[in-house]
């Protein structure tokens, strides 16, 4: 099993470190051909406008939009969650439309509002550490979307089929709970 990590811009190395710690193989995805060699894809944190441009330039947008959730399980964090959404606001922006949710960019404000908190997810009784960096907010989720964690009542970790999206950065912590769960989704052994 090989986990692809979109490596055009952002904290893709942090995801790599976490996934390799869990014993899975990884490969960086920078072009459409790289997608053929992986069983799943991580969309890392970073700047969604920059990443979106690379997805278009490299011809990655279409294949990910077509295969996502079907033959390609995906895990997106922060910017990655923005790319996965059906609708993006503040401002409106193209997206893969793979998770039935509306995401508002930079909804908590500029960097000065970034923070580390702890929160409960449906994955464990123990709170896990959550790093929010210029985070987006999930404003709405459709009926097919499972909300796995909330902050101030707003969803922050959601799943639709084999696609997982977090508005925070589990890859910037030592806690592997969410990445382990994603690997289970990839192996289809929930």
């Amino acid at each position, binding site marked *: 099993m090989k986990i692809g990590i979109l*490596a*055009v*811009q*952002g*904290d*893709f*190395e*942090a995801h790599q470190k976490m996934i390799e710690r869990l014993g899975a193989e990884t490969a960086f995805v*920078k072009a459409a051909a790289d997608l053929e060699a992986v069983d799943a894809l991580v969309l890392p*944190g*970073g*700047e969604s*406008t*920059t990443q979106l*441009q*690379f997805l278009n*330039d490299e011809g990655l947008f279409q294949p990910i939009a077509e295969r996502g959730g079907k033959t390609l399980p995906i895990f997106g964090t*922060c*910017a990655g969650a923005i790319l996965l959404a059906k609708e993006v606001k*503040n*401002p409106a922006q193209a997206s893969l439309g793979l998770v039935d949710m509306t995401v508002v*960019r*930079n909804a908590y*404000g*500029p*960097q*000065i509002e*970034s*923070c*580390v908190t702890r929160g409960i997810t449906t994955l464990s009784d123990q709170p896990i550490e959550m*790093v929010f*960096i*210029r985070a987006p907010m999930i404003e709405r989720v459709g009926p097919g979307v499972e909300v796995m964690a909330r902050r101030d009542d707003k969803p922050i970790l959601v799943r639709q089929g084999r696609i997982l999206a977090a508005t925070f*950065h589990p890859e*910037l912590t030592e806690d592997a709970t969410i990445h382990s769960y994603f690997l289970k989704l990839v192996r289809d052994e929930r």
Partner: protein
Amino acid sequence: MAEELTFSTDPQWRVKVGLAEMLKGGVIMDVTNADQARIAEKAGACAVMALERVPADIRKEGGVARMASPKIIREIQAAVTIPVMAKARIGHFAEAQVLEALAVDFIDESEVLTPADEENHIWKQSFRIPFVCGARNLGEALRRIAEGAAMIRTKGEAGSGNIVEAVRHMRAIVGEMKRLTLLGEEELIGASKQLGAPLDLVRWVARNGKLPVPNFSAGGVATPADAALVVQLGAEAVFVGSGVFKSSDPERRAHAIVKATTHARDPKVVLEASEELGEAMKGLDVRQLDEKELLQTRGW
């Protein structure tokens, strides 16, 4: 990791370094107005640096270079959704306080502006906004990190359009880090003394072979190949100052540099990015500059 730095578990610190992590693999562009900021964002910049004059103009026009006016910064903040950085003078903590009140996303304590304090840099640990600082060697980088910098960039020679100094600084930082990894425990105190850097940071680098914060490159990047060069030498992202908006076709050049940064190790893509570009900025031979004209010797 055998031991953590005392400050590395502090949530405030992790959030600061976290934003620096998000900028990796990207290009941060100097802009002087909202239009340029929009061009930069559209070209794929991962952040913009708001300033009143690009370094090439500061060099040409002379005078005291200060923090940009709040009006310009606000206009740029309103124009883009990517992070907005702004420069404060070395040691000018009141300018940094104003930038924090403006809620910029990152502050560059920069040698490009006229230093306000020739003895002391800003004590960056007391701010909630992350700082980036320039460095020419490992000792300088670690002193800035000790003060609280969440990102290091090479100083290079800003506004020169000449990559030679950025290369010198990146090679110095990476080379000195490699050397530390070969030293025995008993040699690290001597190294700390020689580098003029705190022992805990010297130890951390010796064990990990890298800086505890992202290491970017700045100062002289003018072409896609320049960007590809510094990334292959170890830069995790690239700052472009005068190189974009002092060239003949800023939009294309901006996009080309972004592309070459991501695909730095793929010469075919760097070639593609280098084609059909207009003229690069003219550039300066740094050797012809007078010692007092150098920006990189500001700060210590």
